[in-house]
């Protein structure tokens, strides 16, 4: 099992290793907005504040999108992240 900490609302969730962040967020009702859920619209961009190394590497679409924004490496599209260890997820707004 892995733990995901959603910092915006201080929500701590436990899930089987390898679950997608999208599924965890949906199941726990986390305050993340998803759009296309396929890694191309970018609505669900978040910051992995801790445990980036516990996430899968971005696939080609996601990498392409993040590059187009010059996004720092700790930003990811929540719908594309697979969680393999404990992580903390932060909100990008003010």
């Amino acid at each position: 099992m892995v733990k995901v900490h959603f910092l915006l609302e201080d929500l701590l969730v436990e899930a089987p290793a390898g679950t997608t962040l999208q599924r965890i967020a949906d199941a726990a009702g986390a305050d993340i907005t998803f759009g296309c859920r396929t890694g191309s619209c970018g609505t669900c961009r978040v910051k992995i504040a801790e445990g980036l190394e516990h996430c899968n590497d971005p696939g080609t679409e996601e990498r392409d999108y993040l590059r187009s924004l010059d996004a720092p490496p700790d930003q990811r599209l929540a719908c594309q992240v697979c969680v393999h260890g404990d992580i903390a997820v932060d909100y990008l707004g003010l």
Partner: protein
Amino acid sequence: MTTLDALLREKVLLLDGGMGTQIFARSPTMEDYGGAALEGCVDLLTERRPQWIREIHESYYRAGSDAVETNTFGANPLVLGDFGLSAKAYDLNVQAASIAKEVARSFDRPRFVIGSVGPGTKLITLGHVSYAELLASYRVQMDGLLDGGADAILIETCQDLGQIKVAVRAAREAMAAKKRRIPLWVQATVETTGTLLVGSDISAVLTSLEPLGIDVLGLNCATGPDEMHAHLQTLSESSPFYLSCLPNAGLPENVGGQVVYPLDPAGFAPKVLHAAKEFGIAILGGCCGTTPDHIRALAPGVERLSAPKRSPKLERSAASLYQSVALKQEPPPLIVGERTNANGSKKFRDLLAAEDWNGMIALAKEQQREGAHLLDVCVAYVGRDETRDADELLSRLISQVTLPLMIDSTEVPVIERALQRAPGKCVVNSINFEDGDARPRRILELCRTYGAAVVALTIDERGMAKSREQKLEVARRLYALAVNEYGMDPGDLIIDPLTFTLGSGDEEFRGSAVETLEALKLIKAELPGVMTILGVSNVSFGLNPAARHVLNTLMLYHGVRHGLDMAIFNASKVIPVAKIDPEDRRSFEDLIFDRRSEGYDPLKVVLARFSGRKAVQVEDHRADRPVLERLRDGILDGEKQAILTDVDEALQDHDPLLLINEVLLGAMKVVGERFGAGEMQLPFVLESAEAMKAAIRRIEPHLPKGGSYQKGRILLATVKGDVHDIGKNLVDIILSNNGFEVRNLGIKQPIEAILKELKAWPADAIGLSGLLVKSTVIMKENLHFMEEQGLKVPVILGGAALTRDYVEGDCRRAYAGPVFYAEDAFEGLRHMQALVAGTTGDVAPVPAAVAAAEIKILKRGGAAVPLTAMGQSSWVRHEEAPPTPPFWGVREDTAATEELFGHLDEFALIRNRWGFAQGSQSDEAFAAVLRDKAEPQLARWKARLVATPMLEPRARYGYFPVRAEGDALQVFDPADPARPLARLVFPRQTAGRRLSLPDFFRADRTDVLALQLVTLGQTAADHAARLYKEDGYADYFAFHGLATELTEAYAERLHARIRRELGIQGRDLPGRALFAQGYQGSRYSYGYPACPDLEGNGPLLDLLGGGEIRVRLSESHQMDPEYTTSALVAWHPQARYFSI
């Protein structure tokens, strides 16, 4: 007396700013123009109001301009013809130049007059005007400017590469006739799209103009200084000419129907000076929106600049309308495609005889795909009018193929017509001295006039040069004529030392390859800078195809090692040298280098070894292959034209049903697999489907009575309340071109209507589609309804908001019949195939929340955020005072199509709308797809949208006083802020931040809500519908995607304007981040996660007066016409997207 040239060597020259801006500041009346019919004819004011023009020039000179531009932007017979004033053109130019000269002379220090020549109103590249007509029109203008005393000609604001070349020629000819040489300046206008209006990038412009020997090449108009940087950099690094830069006062904005330029003099000057230093610009000034004050602000800084020094490095290149291609490729050689040649390709000859222009274009594109860098085009065919054929083919080729052209003809008039047609820099193929030097002189003259490179063969009066010495001797003579006499750059002289066949065994030619290879070496050493080329495949004439591939490959390989730069070659037939059998290689190299010995003749060895051997299967040429294979490839390559001939041929001795079932559907299956594996992009899939449709149409009349290739039937519909068409239509295209009968019921279909149709037309499945989140709920309701009716017909669900979990869980539980989720059209196809074959897998509902059960909430921090006393989320902080809008109430806005391009999210368009996904491709392969397919497609569409009006962008937006009241926004009358107009109610998050949209507005005082509504108009929707109906799948899909993103672009543009008007644009991020909420505040549309209820569109349209721009609300609360979008704009810094 100081000349312009002398001054340019000393200092940076300061030109003037906008002329139009100054004229319009005087608010010319109908009387000023001389009547209603002449209103807007600014060039005529030179005659009618000379004092104004005098004053404007004077004000610029006083502000510090070294030179001013004449009021002659449109003063040529073609433009003036719109006012019935063609005959005045010459006089107006003389007069305008004289007035400016007169003012210049009243100043002490040297002041100059630049004759302004605008782009006119007709695009020659798009065929709006003939070459001769345009040339004659410009000639009149040039004559007038010269006679009026202009010190330089400035061909400016250029949007069309073809037009520039004509105007340059007109100027040259006028100067030659008057024996008065003055500097010739050119300024191109690069739109926010990064290209000229017709799609040329700045490198293509430079390559095409470089041989014409102009004096200045720079940029003006379209954008402000910042947006010009990338293009200035290209010119700075490569252009041998002085560089000029006359930007607008920023990117123009439309404020309340008025064009407004955002940069004031203090903002403009430092940006221009920065660019001048950075890029070594020699001539500065301003264009639209700039005034004498802008020039005054620039003057002190310009005085401090010294004449720039650059060391430009220009690669010798050829150019198409769109792009420049270096003649020296790395690795060499540059490949010239040889199949668009009536002498070399039977297929091309047949297409030409049938006047199948599209087929010829397809052949050209095929060569581009195979890796050709340049296309040799030859339409010489006995009994046909070569000039007309060249004209017909080139007029299509130039806009549809991005490769530069090699004009291959022996006829001087054909070459000239072709050079007039092709806007870039061509290569002419070819000259030689067979009949002396009269003909090469005429052709070199054309190369000089039109700016072309030339292929020169080593043939003279004695015939084809065979020995290396003779080849070098003729090459020297060619060099002397082209370079020394005609002033051609040696890099544009491409010498062909001739290739003869080694396949005949003829003793005379046994050593010919050695001579050719050695000649290459000598020519490169003795004539520095020249390029070399060979028609490589000649070397193997007479041998069988298998032997030819190997010999050609090795000849090419050794040619490159001896200094070969370019090869006329079928790019698909290159075999990696490493893959050639070592023994074969030895024999062929012995043949090339003529290494014979007692009892050993490599030719005999080769003939023996290759007799009966099949050609190596490397992307074999289509025509050599069995018809069924060609059919299959026709589908895979999406050759909707070419496939018809193959279909006809195949029908002669194949069963039509078998053709469809085995060959065509088999090929479509491969298409599906490739798409699934990420190897094929959606646009290519659609091209395949178009080819399939064309092929089936052709075969259908031949089907036996009662013979059907159809596998099953499906009813398709977009569900009630949803107007989204495209996903469902893609499914229709894929299924109907994979052997299924599809009845497409359209959008907004209530389940009752679908079931009624099912009764009349029993189908194997129902396919339901929808994009909205709400549609996912409707789909489940539909299934409940079907369950109540006791139906069992299988249902396939697809749509953006659906998830597999939801379909296989919730939806399956609602209905006892089989329910499937289709992620894309091909998964839908697989379900249909499984259904008719009876091999569907497990269709039992996935037990509820299997995975969710394992996901446990360990802690929900400090309960939810509390609400304030006013009922708002306390997470939102109200620290900044609401901004004040420049007006209250609603205004209208319009934009030209091209103005939307600057706000277009090309990234999202190409990847999400057009479906160019990287998938399993390497980064390089994907970059090549983007470069060769996606970007040219976008450039073509932009040119199409500009050339043919298909969009009517209109918008309304406004500012309303509002106050938050719990979950509602109370909107007040802008005219009477005490009077409530509407109350907009929004849902609230139940946990977490407990946000609702009103929280971003003040509850304790009046706040400002901006609303916006943009549409591309009914014409856009009609156009999409027409394309779909006419089976232009790829076009329909491309247009729909582009129109959708352009609707967004307009919304972005209007939102940017709202931010500026509210004074909150300071937090706008640069670049693409703007498309990812990179700004202060947020734009919320109904139907999206923060305000999912489409009903909200009703009050919004009422508030904005949507009817004024013909936007209506459908019964399902969506906006009609398609390509319309609306939004509520919040200014609050914490306002971001959120989900209810």
